[in-house]
């Protein structure tokens, strides 16, 4: 996979810190699972967390606490434990009979193993969506979008951040061309209008942490319908 568009440094820090909404974190985790370079970078951001943890003034802990944990551990015989952990890993990775190569693992927890089996809801002809059940604060959402070739998204900007991860097909906007694995990591400064330029449908995973602002009258009319 030849990934050209990566996560913003500030986004990686927010994900590592655990200070990002659930919906945004899902998109970030999906991109990281597809992108070795961002995976190395996120490990560095997590190292900031490790360092900060190390720097904290310790809280006092009762002796009971250690005893309780040790008692728990004693009740878990080693051999069975390893078998159990292996089994858990196994069932997590293969919870779905198989996972297609264009479904990142963190997403498979939400939709199963295939983009073709998703229950799509039409917004307007050529544009379909599927909402993901991420609990989110402040009106952010995460959803899958499927857009037909030649279609454009409505021009919009954002109050907050928007993450768009391409899973299949491609689109182009003011920022360049985005193909599978690429992520558009945009903030409120940018107004854009993505246009699908692949022969197949473009499927992307998108998350916002605040409602979008559409810049045309049509967009403002459609907004209540699309729920963005």
């Amino acid at each position: 996979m030849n990934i050209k568009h990566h996560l913003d440094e500030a986004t990686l820090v927010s994900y590592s810190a655990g200070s990002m909404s659930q919906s945004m974190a899902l998109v970030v985790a999906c991109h990281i699972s597809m992108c070795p370079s961002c995976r190395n970078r996120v490990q560095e951001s997590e190292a900031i967390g490790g360092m900060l943890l190390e720097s904290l003034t310790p809280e006092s802990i009762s002796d009971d606490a250690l005893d309780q944990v040790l008692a728990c551990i004693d009740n878990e015989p080693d051999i069975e434990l390893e078998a159990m952990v292996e089994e858990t890993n196994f069932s997590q990775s293969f919870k779905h009979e198989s996972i297609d190569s264009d479904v990142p693992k963190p997403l498979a927890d939400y939709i199963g193993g295939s983009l073709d089996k998703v229950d799509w809801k039409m917004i307007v002809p050529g544009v379909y969506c599927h909402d993901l059940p991420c609990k989110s604060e402040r009106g952010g959402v995460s959803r899958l979008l499927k857009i037909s070739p030649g279609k454009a998204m409505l021009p919009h900007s954002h109050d907050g951040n928007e993450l768009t991860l391409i899973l299949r097909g491609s689109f182009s906007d003011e920022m360049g061309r985005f193909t599978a694995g690429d992520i558009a990591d945009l903030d409120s400064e940018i107004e854009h209008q993505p246009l699908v330029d692949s022969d197949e449908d473009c499927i992307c995973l998108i998350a916002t942490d605040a409602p979008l602002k559409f810049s045309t009258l049509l967009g403002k009319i459609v907004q209540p319908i699309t729920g963005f």
Partner: protein
Amino acid sequence: MENKTPGEDVENIIAMPTKQADPNWSDMLAELAETKSKTIYVQLFRHFAPKIKSYIIRLGLVESTADELMQETMLAVWRKAHMYNRTKAAASTWIFTLARNQSIDWMRKQKYPEYGLEEWHEEPDDEVDHCEQVVTSDRMAKALGKLPEKQSQVLYMSYFEGRSHAEISDRLGIPLGSVKSRIRLASEKLRMLWRDDV
């Protein structure tokens, strides 16, 4: 707590280790993975558990919850030790991610999306020197001490208070773009200092 401006107590939370007199926790965690030695586990517990509890309290959870989540995190250390990869992360980094996930899962009642633990097992790739990354914990501590206050503040608010960029922007009364550029500057500076200062 109530009347403090965010990040004001920065001075109180950083006890910069100038010399690492501690045992090498990463080696010990790797040894725990191999031997399942309770003696080593107890040492790791005594070192990390009080810091994990401190971290969880800073996230805004009450003490009884912090105790419980600390215990869950330390149990996860025992149960998942075999997944720890010494060449990919320092013990403190790995344990931080476990504590973070336990806390978030509890607060949101929804699993924090992870990019997949199986990646920890990957063959080391040639482009990045992971071993280099691991020995950097005290270099990093020094680097952190060198950051301008405005930059360390946004890091503390992210890692310790769990605040999103938008929340930090509200609290500090600065535009979202400024929050992000401070975080970028801080993070890039840390990486730089941390690599140069060998």
